[in-house]
């Protein structure tokens, strides 16, 4: 992003009266353009999430990283704190702008001072408790006057220093901070540092700000990759060359395809869905995929759309089999024409070229893909996803196309042997927020919670949270639904209610209400209902519960009335965890 574009973007934003989205930016240098870029990139992230708020980046005093860090952490509350550390913040002699090197400069003493300083900042972080902190590590060159060594040698001082900073970053990460990955762009603008106090090139400042913004307001990760086969998953054309002749190894100059297979394997292990859309005959493809030297496990690929039809139609069918939105899918192909056709037909799908003849470009594409699927942690529920999608296909086959409104044969539901677990403990598992913030289809109102607001809400005495786990004779689905409500007086006010699309067609949503009504007794139930473009399954459920699709707003119903409208229950409540 250019600086002028950043300024124009910020000038064009209007909050519509809402309070701005606040962020503390902690630096020891003059934050100048970094502040502008951070505000602009955060504005873009907010806009992408449909949030109209403007951004308020709060900065501190020049030359006082430690004081700014301390004040920001103490004042922050739920406001994110992004700290950009530089060498000069650790010791004034390591800055380029201030003449701070004394005749008595001693590297050992300096390291000792730096270690103490970093320890004190870490203690502040730990003692402040939960919060949203983000850290970028020094990117400027170390001045030559604080180190000595042979030509081309990293000095022992620099190695010790970097070890201290790495240890600080590791401990800060353990205390909950998120550390930004380093940016490859040249960081230092020596002239500007001397003339304005802002040390970075504009390109670096924009890139760093973008990384911080993506950490602070992460995009919803994509869920599935659809890959082409010939010249993508392997080198060669399987229909012409034969299943044994396609390759992905170094000897046959096909290692980039091996990279792709390894990447897919790692994505599969993280619960990312992997499907195939290929224009081919099915038989040679199945033979090639059965090869023992394939680097991606074949059982992690589902479904296979191998036919001579257009790929957009194949991707539509894959999305239906996965039961996810097209905007959660990335399509990777070596053929620009195929990509363009999919782009035209399915603009929601992210299309990425597999540039088989350019290893550096393949590597760049892999890094880009890693970011698109980036998740902070991988839950056991993520790992269950592929298996449960296969189960879902079987269940759907057995039960027929059951409308969410509760139709279908009672005997078949009874035969499922549904077992439900409720986890109502506080603080709730991280999975609850993850479910609420990524679920689109069965979602009461599409509300996304910021982590800090969520944690603060969970601490309120009237807050009630339930994480719903499920299994049946087809196996476990894991934790697939969540309800967040407030229980005050005679009212139960449901703020968020979501269920993974993997769990459709089993009446789990109705069983959830059935069991929670018993667990959270009340005289009135309120739902924060809002129709979104994508919560059709929730609309179907509410249609059943309220006899018609209600208008947006707070829906009220008495528990008995609600119970009377629930379809017959066949699920058993097998476990409840609670500590309230």
């Amino acid at each position, binding site marked *: 992003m*250019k600086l*002028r574009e950043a*300024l*124009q973007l910020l000038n064009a934003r209007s909050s519509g009266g809402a309070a701005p989205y606040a962020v503390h930016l902690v630096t020891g240098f003059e934050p100048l353009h970094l502040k*502008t870029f951070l505000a602009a990139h955060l504005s873009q992230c907010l806009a992408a999430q449909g949030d109209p708020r403007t951004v308020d980046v709060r900065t501190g005093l020049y030359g006082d990283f430690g004081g700014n860090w301390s004040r920001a952490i103490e004042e922050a509350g739920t406001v994110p704190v992004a700290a950009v550390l530089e060498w000069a913040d650790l010791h004034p002699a390591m800055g380029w702008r201030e003449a701070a090197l004394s005749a008595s400069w001693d590297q050992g003493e300096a390291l000792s001072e730096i270690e103490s300083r970093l320890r004190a900042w870490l203690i502040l972080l730990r003692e402040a408790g939960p919060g949203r902190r983000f850290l970028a590590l020094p990117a400027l060159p170390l001045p030559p006057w604080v180190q000595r060594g042979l030509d081309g040698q990293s000095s022992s001082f620099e190695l010790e220093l970097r070890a201290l900073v790495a240890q600080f970053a590791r401990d800060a990460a353990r205390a909950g901070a998120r550390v930004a990955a380093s940016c490859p762009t040249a960081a230092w603008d020596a*002239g500007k540092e001397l003339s304005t106090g*802002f040390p970075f090139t*504009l390109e670096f400042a924009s890139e760093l700000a973008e990384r911080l913004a993506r950490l602070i307001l992460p995009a919803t990760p994509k869920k599935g990759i659809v890959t082409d086969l010939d010249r993508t998953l392997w080198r060669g054309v399987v229909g012409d060359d034969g299943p044994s002749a396609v390759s992905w190894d170094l000897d046959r100059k096909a290692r980039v395809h091996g990279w792709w297979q390894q990447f897919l394997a790692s994505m599969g292990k993280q619960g990312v869905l992997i499907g195939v859309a290929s224009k081919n005959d099915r038989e040679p493809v199945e033979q090639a995929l059965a090869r023992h030297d394939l680097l991606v496990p074949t059982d992690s690929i589902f479904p296979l759309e191998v036919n001579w039809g257009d790929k957009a139609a194949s991707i539509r069918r894959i999305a239906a089999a996965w039961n996810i939105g097209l905007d959660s899918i990335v399509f990777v192909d070596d053929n620009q024409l195929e990509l363009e056709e999919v782009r035209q037909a399915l603009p929601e799908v992210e299309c990425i070229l597999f540039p088989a003849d350019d290893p550096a470009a393949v590597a760049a594409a892999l890094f880009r893909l890693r970011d698109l699927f980036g998740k902070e942690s991988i839950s056991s529920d993520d790992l269950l996803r592929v298996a449960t999608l296969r189960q879902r296909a079987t269940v759907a086959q057995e039960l027929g196309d059951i409308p969410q409104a509760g139709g279908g044969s009672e005997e078949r539901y009874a035969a499922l042997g549904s077992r439900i677990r409720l986890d109502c403990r506080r603080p709730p598992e991280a999975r609850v927020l993850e479910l609420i913030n990524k679920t689109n289809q069965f979602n009461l109102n599409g509300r996304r919670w910021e982590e800090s607001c969520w944690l603060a809400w969970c601490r309120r005495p009237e807050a009630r949270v339930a994480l719903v786990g499920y299994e049946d004779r087809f196996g476990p689905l894991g934790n697939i639904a969540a309800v967040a409500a407030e229980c005050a007086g005679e009212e139960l006010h449901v703020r968020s209610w979501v269920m993974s699309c993997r769990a459709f067609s089993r009446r789990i949503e109705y069983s959830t209400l059935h069991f929670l009504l018993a667990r959270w007794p009340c005289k009135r139930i309120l739902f924060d209902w809002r129709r979104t473009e994508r919560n059709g399954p929730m609309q179907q459920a509410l249609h059943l519960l309220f006899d018609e699709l209600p208008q947006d707003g707070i829906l009220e119903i008495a528990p008995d009335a609600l119970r009377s409208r629930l379809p017959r229950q066949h699920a058993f409540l097998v476990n409840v965890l609670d500590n309230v």
Partner: protein
Amino acid sequence: MSSAFSHDRLVECFAAVFPGLDAAQIRGASADSVEGWDSIALATLVATVEEQFDVTISPDCYADLDSFEAFARKLEEMR
């Protein structure tokens, strides 16, 4: 780079830094007449102009860049 072209792009740079000014006000803008023309605004203006015109302005000149006209003159000199 024609003079008129350069002035239009310079107006865009000023408009990004001082969004409250229209084109006519920008052409007459100076440190004395524009509220908010401080050292931060000047540093932002310089960086925006350098980026837009792909030039590097020496810090020695910053003190003289106290109006739209001064920026325009500087860019003319650097052509």
